[in-house]
């Protein structure tokens, strides 16, 4: 069999393909995005980007009701968006199979929270599998589809950043031939969740729960390894690897299925070892359930509630040691925060917006990076689509005091994800806030995914382009202005006018992402600073553009200048913003 180095996400995609699954829907989000991108490369699959996770799940439910093996993929917070259909498809079950992948992000490497989505499994009464590495990821996702078919239930598959974005050696298997069982089967009593039917299905869910609990007892991926009987570790997912590395001598119960739990197996393990630690990141999810069985275990008394683990955290917690690793270098090092790219179209817009002194509600995307100094472009950011509702709410609460001072900013992909209904609400309820749609023609933050306004599908087929101006106009917004955000003067005038306008306004700041290959942006010649003209005022530094630096000590006769600006020509792409903000005409 072929052996490949694969990331967790590549392995998941491969597993889905090997399972004969040919239907998937998703919305991109780190650390889940590559699952769909990789899956879409396999021959004969149907894969689509949905505008948001709720739609993705509903599309997959529809496919599964038509008899397909269907997949929906999202990051952990995407499950919040999709929670509504998920909780009720748990009641109905499906005709084919349905697997929902949740890629969680302990430590919030690229997320606004680190919610532990194992809780969703228990909450929605949906079984959940959790692999520990790419090889397991490939095998478990296949098992997830089998469980879904066998028990007529949606199945959750949980990954975390360290599983999705680690790479290791994976053995490939031959893919199953896709079985086309797709057919129209009407069964309204099972699928129309009016109360009278839902009450019947509710009982079925509990019967299924019992059957799944029995299944979990002998599920081969719930594995017991008895070594030293003094200490046993109960764990699941990536933390198993960390613990196994630092304590190879201990006994282990590694749970491949984290919901429902195999109570008899856990009792058997407890009878074989003296002291038990539950090693799990984030919530005491396993710990609380095991303690409720009356089994004495040690968990969050010694392990952190917050952030992902690593081998050292587990070793120190169990040995009762403090971390004693020291760096011989003790001076502070300048941090290296992520930044908007050179030539990014968001930079000019946020520079102009800061001058308006408005309160800016932000949203999720590259532009969230404008929060950092010196642009300081955002004053709030909660979740996808929230900027618009929050701007409206603040504007209403402040009344006259907030007039001309409240703005919401949202990217094109995020607007289509969950910004349309709150904008409709702004029109309906007569808002005074200004919404700026930062339209860079792609889903940039996660790596240039298509969406309904890009003109292409995930499979590369041309499709209708949603015209954002027409869409906004159709929602009832009358004051709409489309601008070029790289023209700072134009942006400032547009923002000023829109803030003075009574009633909802929308500015569409339109300029493709500089990294977006299809936009085919020809880099302009890089700019340079004329050392004779530069007065060292640092105005250009307010743009926080990576090529621009300032060096002290370069003085000029007859000037108070203490130093001058430089532009690193190797990374400047000549967008020209710095030339616009220089009062001395020193950049060109």
């Amino acid at each position, binding site marked *: 069999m072929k*052996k490949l*180095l694969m990331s967790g996400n590549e392995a998941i995609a491969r597993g889905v393909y090997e399972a004969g699954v040919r239907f998937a829907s998703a919305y991109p989000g*780190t*650390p889940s995005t590559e699952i769909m991108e990789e899956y879409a490369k396999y021959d004969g699959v149907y894969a689509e980007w949905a505008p948001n996770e709720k739609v993705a799940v509903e599309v997959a439910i529809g496919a599964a009701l038509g008899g397909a093996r269907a997949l929906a993929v999202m990051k952990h917070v995407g499950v919040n968006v999709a929670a509504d259909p998920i909780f009720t498809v748990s009641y109905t079950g499906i005709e084919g199979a349905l697997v929902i992948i949740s890629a969680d992000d302990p430590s919030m*490497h*690229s997320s606004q929270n680190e919610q532990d989505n194992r809780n969703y499994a228990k909450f929605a009464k949906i079984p959940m599998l959790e692999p520990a*590495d790419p090889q397991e990821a490939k095998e478990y996702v296949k098992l997830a589809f089998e469980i879904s078919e066998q028990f007529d239930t949606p199945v959750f598959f949980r990954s975390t*950043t*360290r599983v999705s*974005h*680690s*790479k*290791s*050696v994976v053995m490939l298997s031959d893919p199953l031939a896709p079985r086309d069982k797709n057919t129209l089967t009407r069964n309204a009593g099972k699928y129309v969740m009016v109360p009278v039917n839902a009450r019947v299905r509710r009982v079925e869910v509990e019967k299924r729960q019992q059957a799944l609990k029995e299944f979990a007892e002998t599920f081969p991926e719930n594995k017991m390894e008895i070594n030293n009987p003094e200490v046993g570790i109960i764990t699941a997912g990536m933390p*198993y*690897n*960390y613990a*196994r*590395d*630092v304590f190879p001598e201990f006994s282990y119960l590694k749970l491949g299925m984290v919901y429902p739990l195999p109570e008899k197996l856990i009792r058997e393990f407890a009878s074989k070892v003296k002291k038990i630690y539950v090693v799990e990141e984030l919530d005491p999810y396993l710990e609380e359930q095991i303690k409720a069985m009356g089994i004495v275990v040690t968990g969050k008394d010694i392990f952190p509630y917050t952030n992902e683990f*690593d*081998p*050292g955290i587990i*070793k120190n917690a169990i040995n009762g040691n403090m*971390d004693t*690793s*020291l*760096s*011989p*270098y003790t*001076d502070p*090092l*300048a*941090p*290296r*925060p*992520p*930044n*908007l*790219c050179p030539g990014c179209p968001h930079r000019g817009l946020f520079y102009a917006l800061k001058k308006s002194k408005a309160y800016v509600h932000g949203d999720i995307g*590259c532009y969230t*990076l404008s929060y950092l100094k*010196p642009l300081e472009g955002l004053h709030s950011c909660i979740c996808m689509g929230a900027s618009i509702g929050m701007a409206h709410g603040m504007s209403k609460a402040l009344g006259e005091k907030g007039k001309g001072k409240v703005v919401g900013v949202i990217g094109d992909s995020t607007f289509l994800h969950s910004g349309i209904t709150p904008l409709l609400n702004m029109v309906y309820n007569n808002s005074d806030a200004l919404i700026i749609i930062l339209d860079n023609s792609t889903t940039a*933050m*996660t790596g240039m995914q298509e969406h309904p306004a890009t003109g292409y599908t995930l499979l590369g087929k041309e499709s209708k382009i949603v015209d954002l101006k027409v869409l906004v106009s159709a929602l009832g917004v009358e004051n709409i202005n489309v601008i070029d955000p790289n023209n700072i003067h134009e942006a400032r005038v547009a923002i000023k006018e829109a803030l003075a306008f009574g009633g909802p306004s929308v500015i569409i700041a339109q300029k493709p992402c500089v990294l977006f290959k299809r936009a085919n942006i020809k880099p302009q010649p890089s700019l340079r600073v004329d050392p004779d003209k530069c007065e060292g005022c*640092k105005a250009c*530094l307010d743009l*926080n553009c*990576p090529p*621009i*630096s*300032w*060096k*002290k000590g370069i003085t000029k006769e007859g000037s108070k200048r203490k*130093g001058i600006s430089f532009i690193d020509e190797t990374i400047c792409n000549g967008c020209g913003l710095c030339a616009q903000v220089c009062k001395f005409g020193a950049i060109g």
Partner: protein
Amino acid sequence: MIDSKVKSILFAGVGGQGILRASDIMCMAMMEAGYDVKKSEVHGMAQRGGCVTSHVRYGTKVYSPLAELGSIEILISFEKMEALRYLKFLRKDASIIVNTEEIYPPAVNMGDSTYPDDVIGFLKNHYGRVVAFNAAELAQKAGNIKAANVVLLGAASKLLNVEISVWESVVRQSFPQKLVKLNLDAFQMGIAA
């Protein structure tokens, strides 16, 4: 000959330097040489000019893709000051390969902070084996500044128990045909550095 004990290597640098590609190539070489290998890194926000690290661990059987503090045997730093950021991860007898290229963080660009002085001298005072050279200049000589990552891999290959033929085979598989020769040259320059 396979070393059975698990060894850990840390790649560090700045988003856009080809760090993840380099650690991929190393993992493929380890796999071809018969080792079990795992690596871990974080994508997403870090791409936008932020710090990037990648852990590579190999041996007969590897569990964790993340290394413990104090366990790294080789640090490959793609940028000079970034080498200082991760010394906590290093064993006292670690080897360090460091690109002497400087990329200023925003606080240094704005004059609010300074770039550390004599990084290489500091590293040499504290670690037994420090190989420091400008990988970008060597890559430029090989034909493209972007091949600096492969130059650094070449330098690292001297510290690892993997045949040169394996490295060359993996480099060939990792680039489109027209870039293979350039990268093989870059790899050789790293070996000679």
